[in-house]
């Protein structure tokens, strides 16, 4: 159970953090993978690829800028061409850029919304026709506790985009339910990833460590905690769960949400 044998999953932002952990867990559970990576970022997709190959699964890596429709379509086409199917999409690619709001430019606002919200939409959109044809699909996104469930100062653009994902999955769930496609998101709390460890744009190691001492479950969240949630939501067992944003945060929102 919660296996993904011979299922095909497309994952964006797969070179690090939550995306990489999800790719690895999915491969362990029998899935073949099409991984989107943004080569301009300094992440090591080759180690992710190698670990999947070691697990005996097939993997295709595509360089993708989720701001570009043609890139996203190329990613999804790679899955269709090489594997003939797409069972699961994990729209996970995102950026966090700290900026005080009175000096947040239109360009910066648009850029974050373009990656974090429209990027999710573009990835889902590209996969819908094939899923609809199959009468089966799992469209999943990485949201955040920031935005829909809590404030994040100097991250109005990030928060707005991530809160937008909760509305996106709700409405798509209603629209695509008749096609047998479920649409859900996970809102991670503070998870130790390259993004959160960035002290300039996010909490940094100290801030991340502090949450591990104060939140109800007294340890720092790790990418595998989120990957296991995606495994559940990506499995056949969740055909009646749709439109949800599942919080995985060690209980932090319960006491300060």
């Amino acid at each position, binding site marked *: 159970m919660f296996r993904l044998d011979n299922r095909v999953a497309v994952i964006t932002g797969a070179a690090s953090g939550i995306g990489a952990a999800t790719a690895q867990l999915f491969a362990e559970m029998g899935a073949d993978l099409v991984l989107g990576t943004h080569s301009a970022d300094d992440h090591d997709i080759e180690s992710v690829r190698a670990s999947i190959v070691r697990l005996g699964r097939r993997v295709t890596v595509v360089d993708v800028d989720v701001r570009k429709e043609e890139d996203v379509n190329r990613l999804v086409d790679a899955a269709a061409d090489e594997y003939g199917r797409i069972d699961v999409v994990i729209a996970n690619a995102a950026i966090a850029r700290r900026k005080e709001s009175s000096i947040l430019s239109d360009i910066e606002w648009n850029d974050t919304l373009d990656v974090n919200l429209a990027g999710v939409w573009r990835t889902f959109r590209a996969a819908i026709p094939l899923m609809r044809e199959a009468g089966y699909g799992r469209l999943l996104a990485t949201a955040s506790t920031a935005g829909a469930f809590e404030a994040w100062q100097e991250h109005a653009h990030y928060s707005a985009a991530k809160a937008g994902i909760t509305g996106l999955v709700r409405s798509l769930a209603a629209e695509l339910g008749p096609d047998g496609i479920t649409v859900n998101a996970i809102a991670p709390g503070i998870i130790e990833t390259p993004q959160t460890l960035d002290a300039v744009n996010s909490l940094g190691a100290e801030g991340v460590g502090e949450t591990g001492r104060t939140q109800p479950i007294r340890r720092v969240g790790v990418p595998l905690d989120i990957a296991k949630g995606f495994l559940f939501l990506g499995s056949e067992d969740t055909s009646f769960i749709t*439109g949800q944003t599942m919080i995985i945060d060690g209980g932090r929102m319960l006491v300060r949400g």
Partner: protein
Amino acid sequence: MPAGRLGGRTAVVTGAASGLGRAIAMRFAREGATVIVSDLQPEPIGTRADELPTVDVIDRAGGSAVFVRADVRQPEQVDALVTRATAITGRLDIVVNNAGLFGLSPLLETTEEKWDADLALNLRSQFLMCKRAIAQMITQDAVDEVRGRIVNISSQLGMTAAPGATTYGVAKAGVAQLTRQLAVDFAADGIIVNAIAPGRIITGTQAAEREYLATGATDEATRFSLSRTPFPRLGRPEDVAGAALFLASDDCTFISGHNLMVDGGWLAY
């Protein structure tokens, strides 16, 4: 350790003779758990009374289960249930608080006695089970940081109001808050507490539901539910069992206090 996601684990499922509890017990047993099937009587209720008791179904499939008769409204019976379950391996790993009963209770027709009785069945019972189970769980050694997992069955009707569902809705909203409270209070002890809020699940214990399952014929209530559900079908007990398995399994490591809706998108819509 026996194979399966719950191999070697002891799980109590209340209200497990019928419906959701029965499906959860059967799924847990398939995943290797020793399941304590608790209910007022071993046989399924309603139009499914002719079917085999849950423990016999599990037994025939090669699983491990025992029936323990318990009225979870009674503290001493809750004590006995937890003691009996713990005696098997010395641990109580999983509790699913599912026992309860839906019924309408329009305010002006609801007596004080009915209010008390309905809340005792649908909310106080879960308080009693959580209290007794957590008292046991916190004495156990942690396995991968976790001493025990509790899954409380709440309801969509605790999050949105349906006409006349006064006592049931209040009780189930209470279950969701009890879940959040205990998740916070016992997280540091390694107790993970989550809830599932089922939407319209067709258990087949009522005549109209059985008819729908057999022939697809719909009554007015079923047609309304279908019109409100993005999914092209209504829920099955197995949908809830899959969610319960996730929340009871080692895959549920950093999630606590969550009220997971299994409703085919009803509330999202």
